[in-house]
């Protein structure tokens, strides 16, 4: 199954995605983060929060494009969700395939490890000691994931637990399924 997901993701990237220079993407995102850091006067907790909010607004919209173009249906398990995120969603939107790791025994938590991160390519955090400890530079992704999954009725807690920009060994996003929003599932689907 996972082989065919990989192929689906690659085909989708190849055939359905309009491609653009990733540096323009990196720089554009960078200018937002820098602006937030200025506007919130180096209060990185606030910056993280704002980035998460922005991401959420993206997530609740981006999901429609993902569903419309990917041919992917409703996931049967959180395990499947993890694979689809990594092999199809990340591939299609960012041309990367994060590793899915550290699944918890109850199957409700996993990590996405980003060996590459187009948001943060050639980025260095501000040299003020604080940023290295507090700023999650790519926190927009956390919001995107939370928003997008909420739209398919999955209430998921998402957070960065590591970032190479901060000197961590890996850039890692942790996802934890809180519950399936059964009441929100549209009528007619059962």
């Amino acid at each position, binding site marked *: 199954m996972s082989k065919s997901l990989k192929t689906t993701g690659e085909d989708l990237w190849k055939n359905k995605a309009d491609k*653009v220079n990733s540096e323009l993407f990196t720089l554009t995102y960078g200018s937002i983060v820098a602006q937030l850091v200025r506007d919130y006067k180096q209060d990185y907790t606030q910056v993280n929060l704002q980035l998460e909010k922005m991401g959420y607004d993206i997530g609740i919209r981006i999901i429609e494009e993902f569903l419309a173009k990917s041919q992917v249906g409703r996931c049967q398990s959180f395990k499947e969700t993890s694979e689809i995120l990594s092999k199809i969603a990340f591939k299609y939107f960012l041309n990367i395939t994060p590793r899915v790791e550290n699944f918890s025994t109850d199957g409700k938590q996993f990590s996405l490890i980003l060996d590459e991160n187009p948001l943060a390519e050639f980025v260095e955090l501000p040299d003020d000691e604080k940023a290295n400890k507090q700023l999650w530079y790519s926190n927009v992704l956390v919001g995107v994931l939370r928003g997008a999954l909420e739209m398919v009725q999955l209430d998921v807690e998402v957070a960065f637990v590591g970032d190479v920009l901060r000197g961590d060994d890996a850039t890692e996003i942790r996802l934890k399924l809180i519950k399936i929003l059964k009441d929100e599932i549209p009528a007619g689907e059962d």
Partner: protein
Amino acid sequence: MSQPSDIIQVSNPTQTSTKSALKGGYNPSLGPIQLPTSYQAQLASTASSKRNIYDHSLSRRAPEVNLSSLSYIFNVMIQYSQKNSKGIQELEGKLNTLGYSIGPKVLELITLREGKNAKREIKLVEILQFIHTQVWRTLFGRVADELEKSSEADDEYMITDKQPLMSEFISVPKDMGQLNVNAFVAGIIEGILDVCYFQASVSAHTVETPGCPNRTVFFIKFDRDVIERENLRFHK
């Protein structure tokens, strides 16, 4: 403020145990910092498992992402700027400023990639051609459509893009009238011109033609000094 300590540490690397304090690379006020080889080896061994941005090559061809991802990021930029603006003009100003901040970086990247062929443009028309061609191709995958000189004033030029990439999916509501979100791109151009010592103000205007509802004219107005310099240098 931190520079003096940097200098001390560079000249005396064995004293420092904190790896964050000692950095190789480029310091704007000191120039390139070459770390002593003994330290480089030490650094390599301690940080071997970690990816360092200096290890990456900048000159490889840029990878690609989905245009959608750029559009979404651009959209939150617009929404955030809009929230903090009182009117269209202020919003365009904010987008321009954000674009301006990345202009010099775009320029550096392009010239770096061109390697030996890179040259510093000193003629006004050539810098405009550089923007119209190389900058556009790097950022948007194709050259801009037209580059024109105003017939009315000697300090005004126009670059036209029939279908600007950044605003492909965007419909500006009627009550926002003249807004053109390509003010961001105008800012990038302005930033590039500025670091090249061609100070100008650049603005983006929608000039619709049949079949091209988003057609955008980037209106470039150079500072008087720039025009005078140009005349002195090349036309007298």
